[in-house]
């Protein structure tokens, strides 16, 4: 019950923040140099279509009214039409969203799980070879430049070894083939996902490992660890059952704090690997001056970040009984 109240409160906070973001975006679009109309209406449109769109978006009305139209359009899912694709923006981002979520969530969750697991092990063997190797490995992968890592991986594993495809999420042959079953299609996606997933995973798991490691070392100094030993528990039980659950909490916090940075990374990964997600769409739409699409992508990413924050915070509240009760 407490948990639901907590989620409810956070949802309200998120709504407020999102509201501020929308408003700021609205103002920026209207107040930036240049003709705001040309930002919402494709210059290649016929005058009649343009007229229609202008009145639909309320661009001929005063600023206050425009704002209301803007909100109304947002809530009805009307983001206009993409200059580049000629399709309604909502369709495009709707198609892209699952791809991003698939890649991003898998990478972050995997990075967190592996990071916690290895960080725990590194702390056990503090000072010995295993620990040194893991720490160095974590340091190196954590500081490597993400797009460059992606390029290197493509070069080595896709280009040279031909183990993986160089770009994209799907192979046309598999997906256009009417006889190909769900399993074959799934496998195809996974095959394409390996390299981008590895890139995103590598850059993140290092920091989680390091945090878990130092967190474990701190936790092992706590009084309840002494209690555990006094009770006659084996070191293994103490580390896994008593220390690790406490030590993992700061890692959860770290995942939450670095979400903004992770999203940057996600967008970069998608771009390098031509993975058809929202991040890549944003990058491309900006370079093509496809304003409606760019704006919608940005707002969607903002929502994703905020919701991810909520998920992480809820997870923390669930794991730490001191928050829940």
């Amino acid at each position, binding site marked *: 019950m407490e948990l639901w109240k907590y989620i409810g409160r956070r949802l309200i906070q998120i709504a407020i*923040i999102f509201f*501020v*973001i929308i408003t700021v*975006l609205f103002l*920026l*679009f209207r107040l*930036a*140099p*240049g003709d705001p109309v040309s*930002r919402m209406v494709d210059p290649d449109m016929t005058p009649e279509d343009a007229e229609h769109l202008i009145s639909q978006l309320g661009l001929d009305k005063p600023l206050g009214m425009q704002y209301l139209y803007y909100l109304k359009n947002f809530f009805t899912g009307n983001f206009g039409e993409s200059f580049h694709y000629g399709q309604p923006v909502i369709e495009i981002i709707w198609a892209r969203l699952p791809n991003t979520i698939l890649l991003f969530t898998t990478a972050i969750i995997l990075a967190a799980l592996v990071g916690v697991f290895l960080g725990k092990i590194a702390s056990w063997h503090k000072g010995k070879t295993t620990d040194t190797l893991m720490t160095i490995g974590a*340091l*190196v992968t*954590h*500081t*490597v*430049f*993400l*797009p*460059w*890592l992606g*390029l*290197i991986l*493509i*070069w080595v594993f896709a*280009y*040279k070894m031909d183990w993986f495809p160089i770009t994209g999420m799907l192979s046309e042959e598999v997906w256009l083939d009417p006889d190909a079953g769900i399993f074959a299609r799934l496998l195809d996606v996974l095959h394409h996902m390996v390299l981008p997933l590895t890139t995103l995973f590598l850059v993140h798991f290092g920091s989680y490992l390091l945090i878990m490691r130092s967190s474990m070392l701190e936790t092992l100094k706590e009084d309840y660890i002494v209690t555990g030993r006094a009770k006659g528990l084996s070191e293994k039980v103490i580390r896994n059952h008593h220390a690790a659950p406490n030590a993992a909490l700061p890692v959860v916090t770290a995942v939450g*704090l670095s*979400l*903004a*940075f992770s*999203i*940057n990374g996600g*967008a*970069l990964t998608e*771009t390098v690997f031509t993975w058809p997600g929202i*991040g890549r769409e*944003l*990058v491309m*739409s*900006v*370079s093509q*001056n496809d*304003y409606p699409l*760019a*704006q919608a992508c*940005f707002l969607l*990413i*903002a929502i994703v*970040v*905020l919701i991810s*924050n909520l998920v992480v915070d809820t997870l923390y509240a669930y794991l730490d009984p001191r928050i829940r009760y």
Partner: protein
Amino acid sequence: MSLEKSHKRHLKKFPWMDRLRGGWTIYKRNLLGRIGLSLLVMFALMAICSFIPPLIDPMYQPMTGVDPEITKSTGPSLRHWLGTDFMGRDILSQLLAGARVAFLVGVSAAFMSIVLGTAIGMVAGYMGRLVDTLLMRLADMIMVMPTMLVVLMLAALFGQLTIWTIVLIIALFRWPGVSRVIRAQTLSLKHRPFIEAARVAGASHTRIIFRHIMPNVLPLSFLYMTFRVTSAIIIEAALAFLGFGDPSTVSWGMMLQWVWKTGHMFKAPYWLLPPGICISLITLAFYMLGRAMDEVLDPRLRKEAGTE
């Protein structure tokens, strides 16, 4: 400690001098810090040396240098130690220039975010109540936003951004982290006797903040600068990589963009590897520096064997 000594401590307005000295001793012992510092010195040397190649021969100019004999990407040679890019420009001089840009971007963005963050943190901590809540809510909102993507949106609206605009925007998004720490420090300083004394003496709020709180909080700011520098460099590199950097600046990210976009990714390792290695190493260097700073700032992390 005798009564006199502790009394003197309270009146001492600049205890940070001793802390700084003590901090340096701790820092010197730390291996990570030493490695980080050496790497940074190497990059600093690179940045300084970046002025040399164009002086030797105009063809070594990173941006506009044209080798009369080479107009495509070639491997390392005596003429061009790291080879040339697709236009025949020298890669090594580009790399050196990139070091210069990295420091420029990193340090300026970090500096600006420190100035902003310290000012806001001090005001929030000192004023408290409504001002504090508002500022910290603002900080929370900004921290949530992915900086790089925001700059992208702004690029969309305002056209091509110059390097300084990018630096400014980065600073505008990195101050929340600093302000939190400074705010906490201000809160603890707020109730110290020497602040009370100043208040009783009739000093205005501004005077108290700038003359009394700031000097005690500033060292902390500068120490935290190390954390800010890395992210600024990475964001600039990422933006340049995507094609949104300042086209008149040669940065490492820009070099990667050229390699990528001109399709030389697989054919020119001498071009692909150096800039990426540099970005990664400088990030590593600042990270190590930051960790060493951590030990200086937080006594609990120091490697002292405990007593019961």
